[in-house]
């Protein structure tokens, strides 16, 4: 089987992290974002993956080559010369996706969930139509575009953008499976799959909705990245608690703590809930961590009395002096913070 991952541009919403690392390689719960997706796809029998990108950083090619070997798959870059939206990239990758008669997956690269690709594949085969959209239920549907089914079926009737009155609580989760026939509907030009392709398919009754179980999050920006991390860790605690640090461990507080085996934790720390600590991180003595992501190689000193909060994001190689307070600071790479940041702001 084949899959297309819509990576897109420079991951501007996740800056400053994406200033030094391409977005698919930013580690989510100690694993590059894209690896979560590749693993999910491989499990469902996918062997050919196309990355739809606007640019093609060298570092990404090297790492993806590694994944090709590791998972025994083929990864192809499909580079857009101009941004093609969410549908255009399918046309651009027509040759690979259209090969053979088997359906292919399409997914947005910012989505975190339990990737139910095998169930999705079976569901799609069962209804036999052109496409299936994964939908997830949300509490406040009025903020999104919602999906309304023909009553009593999974067949999609229509899409309603930001409904004022409740019509449905199901929204597009950004994961699809299509038969190759969809490619006949798409031209090679900037096109929105949600606005220009799906309504027509729904009209033709060729689009079904597959309901997602469990958590779902678009982790494309720092605040949601943290929320997504909490969801992922909570799910891990339920499904594979052995991957988390034992909640009985003396420094763990409130559970849901993921620590890479190469990381070092000091004495008298209180860590958790909802913390991930990446490879080669050093956490000093007397440190308190909560609802945060410590990326590879970061060092937190013993008793430094630094306080970071309010969705602060430190870019690559940033240092913060002792006793500093940062509230909602967004700090670009290689900066040194010597004064308090009391209001959310960007430190250039």
């Amino acid at each position, binding site marked *: 089987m084949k899959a297309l991952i819509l990576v897109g541009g420079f991951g*501007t919403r996740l*800056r*400053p992290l994406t200033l030094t690392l391409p977005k698919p390689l930013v580690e989510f719960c100690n694993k590059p974002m894209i690896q979560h997706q590749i693993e999910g796809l491989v499990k469902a029998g996918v062997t050919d993956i196309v990355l739809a990108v606007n640019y093609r950083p060298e570092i990404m090619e090297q790492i993806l080559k590694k994944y090709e070997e590791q998972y025994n798959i083929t990864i192809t870059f499909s580079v857009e010369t101009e941004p093609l939206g969410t549908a255009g990239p399918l046309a651009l990758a027509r040759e690979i996706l259209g090969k053979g008669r088997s359906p292919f997956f399409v997914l947005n690269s910012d989505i975190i969930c339990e990737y139910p690709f095998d169930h999705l594949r079976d569901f799609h085969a069962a209804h036999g139509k052109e496409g299936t959209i994964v939908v997830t239920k949300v509490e406040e549907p009025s903020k999104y575009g919602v999906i309304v089914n023909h009553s009593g079926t999974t067949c999609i009737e229509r899409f309603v953008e930001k409904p004022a009155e409740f019509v449905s609580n199901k929204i597009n989760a950004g994961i699809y499976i299509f038969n190759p026939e969809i490619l006949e509907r798409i031209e090679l030009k900037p096109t929105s799959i949600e606005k220009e392709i799906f309504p027509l398919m729904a009209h033709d009754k060729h689009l079904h909705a597959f309901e997602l179980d469990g958590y779902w999050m678009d982790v494309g920006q*720092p*605040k949601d990245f943290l929320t997504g991390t909490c969801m992922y860790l909570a799910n891990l605690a339920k499904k594979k608690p052995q991957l988390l640090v034992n909640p009985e461990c003396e420094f763990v*507080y*409130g559970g849901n703590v993921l620590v890479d085996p190469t990381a070092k934790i000091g004495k*008298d720390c*209180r860590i958790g809930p909802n913390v991930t600590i990446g490879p080669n991180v050093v956490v000093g*003595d*007397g440190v*308190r961590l*909560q*609802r945060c992501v410590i990326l590879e190689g970061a060092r937190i000193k013993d*008793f430094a*009395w630094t*306080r970071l*909060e*309010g*969705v602060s994001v430190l870019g690559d190689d940033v240092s913060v002096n002792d*006793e500093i*307070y940062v*509230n*909602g600071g*967004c700090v670009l790479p290689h900066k040194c913070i010597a004064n*308090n940041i*009391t*209001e*959310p*702001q*960007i430190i250039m």
Partner: protein
Amino acid sequence: MTCKAIILVGGPSRGTRFRPLSLNVPKPLFPVAGHPIIWHHLEALSKVEGLKEVMLIGFFEDSVMARFLDDAAREFPKMNVRYLREYQALGTAGGLYHFRDEILRGDPQQLFVLNADVACSFPLSDMMRFHNRHRGLCTILGTKVARENANKFGCLVAKPDSHEVLHYVEKPESFISDLISCGIYLFDCAVFNEMKKAMLNKTTQGPYQDQDDKLRLEQDLFGPLAESKKLYVYVTQEFWRQIKTAGSAVPANALYLEQYSKTCPDRLTKKSIDGQGPEIVGHVYIHPTAIVDPHSKIGPNVTIGPRAVIGKGVRIKDSIILDNAEIKNNSCILHSIIGWDSKVGTWARVEGTPTTNYSTTITQNGVKVQSVTILGKKLGSIFTSEIRNLPVKVEKWIVEKAKQSVAEKATTSEITTASQSSTEITTTSQSPTEIITTSHQTRKERKMLKEKLKEDDLTLQHVRYNKSPPVL
């Protein structure tokens, strides 16, 4: 030659700017660098040759001063320290004039008059030498301040060579001089004649003037003295600072600790040699009965009071920790005053903002706020919470994160003004962040708050945005 000294201590209606701390102890007795503010005055006076008698003049209850007088008698056995209570506020000179017979008993020749609300190196012997060389009636201790701050004080213009004061104005609207009065004076006792004249002058000025016993040194006496060329200024290069608001106790504390390091370094806590004690940075005074964990970092400019308990991994800088306060593990106290019996939880951060000039307020989002965070008496601060630039009154449990947006601060101050007297309103409008005592709390509410306090880490989960997060 015999001389006496007067310390003008004021009374309970004063010191509103010193709240919340003055709610528990009268301002002159507030401890700075391990001793009450006026203890430092007494110490300096005890070194003046021939000075045997010190009178505190004010309108506090006698009982308020009793304990301090007992301690002073023990610590300064060569001086007789007494308290003379005014029947009402008589102004800076009114009290002196009222007690003139008492003061002049034993026929002293000279009289030091010290305002209580200053921190100073008190170069009294130098002042006296200078005084004895000129023929004036009064020597004022003067110091130079930055031009922009001068108009907050009494300003002096003096002849550069003779230091005779040509002109004296109290808190002028425009710039007069950057030489100001330190509130410390040395008088020949003949000055009582001048006071009498000033008093008469006041009563003969007609029906527009209040007919009372009030007399102010600065306005009613120094003007005429300067006119008659009897006023001189001795300019000191050493430290001086007014202790006006509670927040200014922090810089005053630093100055006295600095002075200890020069004159009596034994009072300061030594740096630990073999890691036995806490890490000490700069000048630190720790009371012998305080318990400080060896894995803490203290200083510079920190005073830790009697029976305070400082936990492991605690950081304290530019702060005063008062009696019996407890700072739990890994907390960070910067530029703050922690009140008597207060408790600060683990990983909490209590922070004020350092100021450079004589002001203790700063402007934040266009609103003037206190620069020093002050926790009043018996205040419980929740674990891992954060408090910034906020004076908090007695017995208030901080349950929610105390840092608030400006809009919320305004609401708080409205509640404040509603429940307080008129003097409070001025204070509050200057510092809209003030949180008022919750004495109206019912027992049930208190119990609920205490229960809530047990839920460790409650606050961090409710991190609040003042603005939306930045977009890059």
